[in-house]
Every structure is written in structure tokens, then in C-alpha cells.
């Protein structure tokens, strides 16, 4: 019997806090407790650290620090971007997004369509999960107020061509927002070259604790504040700064930039090893997404004739953490909206498992996973009325 390991392959859901981030944060739970807005030295020294953290986040995107607004999470960033832009431009009544966005974008759009009279266009994707940019060009109109397209998909890892999309939006004079919660820190995003107007970021996908995010707002973008209150964040988000977490996010961005090459090399090699290792021994297995344009850390594999929750529970028992687009895991009765939009057949939509790695994933963990998964799949298939060898 193989010795049991603990293997965390659900980094697109959340990640471990990096030791460096934790160390950077600790003083701000202790002696560095001042309010950065205060005139005295308690606040002043904290304010200095805040400036540095903001510079580190800005550096990851090659933008100016005053274009970064700290928020409480990725969802707040998305809400701020979408509702703030529409609030400041009430003339236009058409909004465009994709069917495969994270609920933190998609449900905001649908809420606005349902309750605020917006006409919504949700762009579809092809079988590989990619958008049709020609379709995008045709749907943007002079009445379009806002376009949101994610930089990379959380379930499949598909990377969307946000540079081209941003250029199309610019040409059509449409404000463009991208949810980069999954992409940021994993692939280079130089916003001097990519003309997005707004970009959402989440800390805990970058190895900070949960509870911190950021929104990049390109200078000159018309947007109303999301939390009205004090002068913090240049008046764009009231509320005393969440100092320890902001410091943590600054450190996390710095680390992400330092490890970006490693992410593309070490992490994608392990991901490819896992994928190849599983597919070479398990039949009736499909990759959901576009293998040629994916985040380096993500693979979404459909195992035919079995159901995801059952797979996850068996994996969990063996110490392996992953996630699934199966209906049963979510509490809803329908499988993942992303897989449905891609037209993934039911034979493996319910049996789709996402493995997402991080720079902390080791080769031994991947080897262990390659050993464990095939038996789990085999046992469940033997139990399935649909599987015939």
C-alpha cells in the first residue's frame, strides 16, 4: 500500500499562503498598527509601507501605483468595475460579456439585465472553450457601455486574447473590463501593451490569505466609487485600509513576478506530466479546454461514464484535493455553466475533474496522483451502468 500523501491540486479555488507573504504581514498584526491616514508617526510609517505595496502591485502590470485600488476580494473588484462604470455612464444600455465568466461577473451582468433594464449579450464559446472575435466585433455597438471578458477561465484554464479584445473594444469606443483573477501572476500581463480599462485581481489566488483584492482603473476611466466614505484610495473606495492584507498582496505580487518563469516551466511541466500520466492509463478521457492556450497550472479532464463528486470524495480519502464541474458538487442540479457553454457531452461533463497546481506543487505529489487516480476511476466505472469495457 502506497503511503498516503496530502496533495493540494485545487489552487484555482484558493492557494496556501506563501511563507514570504505571511512573514511580510505579521508586523502589521503587531507593532505596526497605525492608521495610514493619521498625521502622527504611528500612521506615517504604515502609510510608507502601503505606498510600497501599491507600487509592487502596479509593477506586476507595468502601470502607475495610483491606478490601483485595493478592495476586499475579486468579487468586489468586479462589482466595482461593472457597476461603477455603468453608474457613471447612464446613457448607454447595452452590456456584453461571455457565457463562461465567473459568477462574480456573470451574475452581476444578469442582475443588471434583469433589474436595471440593460440589454445583455453573452458571447458563446466553441467546443474548445474559445471565443469568436468576429462575433465580438459584430455585437459591440454605439449603445454598448461595457464589455467584460475574463483573462483566463477558472475551470478550463483557457487564456482569452485580451490584447486583441481590448483593441477591438477601443476601436468601438467601449469600456473594457477583464477579470484577471485566475490569470494574474500566472502569465505576463503588461497593461502598457494591453489596453484594458479595468482589471480585477484577487489575493488568495496569489498566495495571500482570503480577504484582499485589487482593481486596476486606467487613468481617465469614468467610474463612480463603490464604497462612498473617506478619501482612502483617492476617494474611489472609502474605508480604512486593510493594511496587513494589502502588505500581503504587495508581497504576493512581487513573488509572483519573481516566479513567473518558474510557473511557465516547472508548473506546466508537472501539469503536462499529470495529464499524460492519467491519459496513458485511463481510457475514455478527454481534456476540456484548449491545450494550446491554457494557464500553465490548470487541466480539466473529463472521465466518461462516472460522476465527479464520487471521484472527488475517493480522491479526498486518498489525500488528494481537486474540484469538479459536476452538478452534485455544487448543490445545483446542473453541471458547470462553462462546460455546458462549450457543449461538453453529458457522458463526461458530470465526470469532469479540474486539477490546478501551484509553484508549491512537487513532482512527488504528481507521481502520487498519477498512481491514485486510475484505480478510483476504474472502481467507479465498474459500478456504472453505462460503462462497458
Amino acid at each position, binding site marked *: 500500500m502506497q503511503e498516503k500523501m496530502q496533495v493540494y491540486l485545487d489552487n484555482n479555488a484558493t492557494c496556501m499562503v506563501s511563507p514570504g507573504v505571511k512573514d511580510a504581514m505579521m508586523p502589521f498584526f503587531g507593532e505596526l498598527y497605525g492608521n495610514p491616514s493619521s498625521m502622527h508617526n504611528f500612521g506615517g510609517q504604515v502609510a510608507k509601507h502601503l505606498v510600497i505595496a501599491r507600487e509592487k502591485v502596479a509593477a506586476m502590470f507595468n502601470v502607475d501605483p495610483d491606478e490601483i485600488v485595493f478592495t476586499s476580494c475579486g468579487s468586489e473588484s468586479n462589482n466595482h468595475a461593472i457597476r461603477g462604470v455603468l453608474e457613471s455612464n447612464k446613457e448607454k444600455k447595452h452590456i456584453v460579456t461571455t*457565457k463562461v465568466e465567473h459568477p462574480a461577473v456573470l451574475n452581476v451582468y444578469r442582475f443588471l439585465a434583469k433589474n436595471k433594464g440593460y440589454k445583455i449579450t453573452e458571447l*458563446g464559446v466553441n467546443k474548445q472553450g474559445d471565443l469568436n472575435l468576429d462575433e465580438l466585433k*459584430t455585437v459591440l455597438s454605439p449603445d454598448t457601455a461595457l464589455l467584460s471578458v475574463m483573462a483566463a477561465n477558472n475551470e478550463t484554464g483557457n487564456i482569452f486574447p485580451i490584447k486583441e479584445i481590448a483593441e477591438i473594444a477601443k476601436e468601438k469606443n467601449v469600456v473594457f473590463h477583464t477579470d484577471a483573477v485566475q490569470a494574474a501572476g500566472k502569465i505576463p500581463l503588461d497593461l502598457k501593451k494591453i489596453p484594458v480599462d479595468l482589471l480585477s485581481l484577487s489575493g488568495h489566488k496569489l498566495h495571500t490569505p482570503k480577504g484582499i483584492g485589487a482593481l486596476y482603473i486606467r487613468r481617465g476611466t469614468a467610474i463612480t466609487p463603490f464604497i462612498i466614505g473617506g478619501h482612502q484610495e483617492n476617494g474611489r473606495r472609502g474605508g480604512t485600509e486593510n493594511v496587513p492584507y494589502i502588505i500581503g498582496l504587495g508581497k504576493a505580487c512581487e513573488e509572483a513576478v519573481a516566479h513567473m518563469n518558474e510557473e511557465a516551466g516547472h508548473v506546466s511541466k508537472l501539469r503536462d506530466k499529470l495529464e499524460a500520466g492519467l491519459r496513458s492509463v485511463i481510457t475514455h478521457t478527454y481534456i476540456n479546454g484548449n491545450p494550446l492556450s491554457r494557464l500553465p497550472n490548470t487541466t480539466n479532464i473529463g472521465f466518461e*461514464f*462516472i*460522476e*465527479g*463528486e*464520487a471521484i472527488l*470524495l*475517493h480522491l479526498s*480519502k486518498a489525500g488528494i484535493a481537486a474540484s469538479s464541474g*459536476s*452538478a*452534485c*458538487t455544487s*448543490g*445545483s*442540479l*446542473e*453541471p458547470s455553466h462553462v462546460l*455546458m*457553454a462549450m*457543449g461538453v*457531452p*453529458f*457522458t463526461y461533463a*458530470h465526470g469532469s475533474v479540474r486539477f490546478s497546481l501551484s509553484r508549491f506543487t512537487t513532482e512527488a505529489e504528481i507521481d502520487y496522483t498519477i498512481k491514485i487516480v486510475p484505480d478510483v476511476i476504474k472502481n467507479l466505472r*465498474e*459500478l*456504472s*451502468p*453505462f460503462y462497458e469495457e
Partner: protein
Amino acid sequence: MWDYTKSVIDHFEHPRNAGKLKDANAVGQVGSLACGDALKLFLKVDPETEKIEKAKFLTFGCASAIASASALTELVVGKTLDEALAVTNEEIAAFLGGLPKQKMHCSVMGKEALEAAIANYRGQSVEEHKEQEVLCKCFWVDEEKVRENIRKHGLKTVEEVTAYTKAGGGCGNCIGDIKRILAEENGSIVEQQVEQKKPKMTNIARMKLVSKVIDEEIAPMLRKDGGDIELVDVDNTDVYVKLRGACARCANAKATLKHIVEAKLRESVDEDIKIIEAE
């Protein structure tokens, strides 16, 4: 993560009586791949005594679906068919120390597979749902089943109905009807839904093109998955269709309509096309 009892986890990890039963003389199958769970139950019945001597199963589904099937086989072995028919889905759930509310339909599936297997043994045909009676088209649940569950289990909310029957858990189109039935069964008065107007046919050219695209491109695609589609009517850009075969019982009929049928027609005919599932 679901809050499963130790017994659910035990039956999931070590299912009793799993596999095919070669000498089965009664077989019942319910559910489908599209629904996300299915159960095939095999029984060996003694023709003299009508006692269930052996029971085995195959399940496609989540932990509680597997555990419910396992529990069912343990419950019915040794019982006569009539005794087995008296087993309720609550007994299956209770045998496992309870199921999360949202997973009660797993125990209902066990009960239905048992009924199907016994009907199969007795040479009765399993009742086919008539289309008009189907309330939840996503999970193919008829009104009678909803009423039965409301009465039996004292259900009060749409969420509870969904937990027990799955009805209302897909596209949500039948939630209004479920509310009405809940109100009727629970004795309060609600206004009747306004009847939908029957669309009238206009615009021959568009209709012809829609019909052509459905016949030549969409239907062949759906047939590959055992489904089919029927064009019912076209009213300007509103296209009324019915899904057939596997598609009609598909958990994601709405997704199919939206992502496959509507997308294709928008691409090939008119970007304003709206797909409406015909009543």
C-alpha cells in the same frame, strides 16, 4: 462539502451488492447520463414465494446515489415483492442515518428503480409519462409525482420539492407551477397563471431557412446523442421548438436550446433569433 453521515460514507466507499446479477429475473433502470444520476437494479426473485433472494446494482452518480442504492439492496433482500414495494424512500434515507436535504432525490431514485424492477418482473409496463403531464421538463417529473411527494413528506417550499423530486432544479421554468401546486396542496389560494398565447406563423422565408438549418445541421447533431428536435412554429424571430428523444428528458434541455440550437440559428439565420421551448 456535503455533510454526509458515517453510514453514507461507508456505503459509498464499500457499496454492498455492487455489480451485475447474472441470474437476475427482474431488472429496473431509472435516470440517465444527462440527469447526472442513474440506477440499474437487478433482482433474483423466487417464483414460488415471490421472495427477493438476491439484489445487486449499478449506479452512475454521486456518493449519496451510490450509498442509497447500496442501502436499498440491503433493505429488500429477504422481503417478498409486496413487502419490498412498501419500502419508502425515507426508509432508505433512514437506513443511512439520513441524507442531506438536497440529496433526498437519491433515495427517491432507489424507490423508483425498485418499482421499475418489480413491474418488470410482473410483466407490467412501466408507466410512461404523457408529455402534457410533465411538469419539469429538465428532469422529466410529472405533476402527480410532485403532488405525491408534497403530500407524503409534507413539503412546504419549492426547494424542498426540488430536493425530493429534482423538479425545478434545472431551468426553473416550472417553479411557478410548483408554487401553484404547493399552494393547492397546502390549501392556500393563488391566482392562476396567465395562459400563454399561441404564437401565429409569419414570415415564410425566415421560417424556411430556420427549418432548413434545423433539419440539416442541428437535428443530425442532436441525433448523435440519441436526441432530436422538432420545429413547431416561427413567429418573426421567435422560434418555437420541442426537444425529442434523449433531449426531451435531458437535465440540460435549456442549455442545449440556448447553447446549441439558438447559437446555431443566430449564426445561420438571424442574430435576433430567440428559441422558445414549445408548450
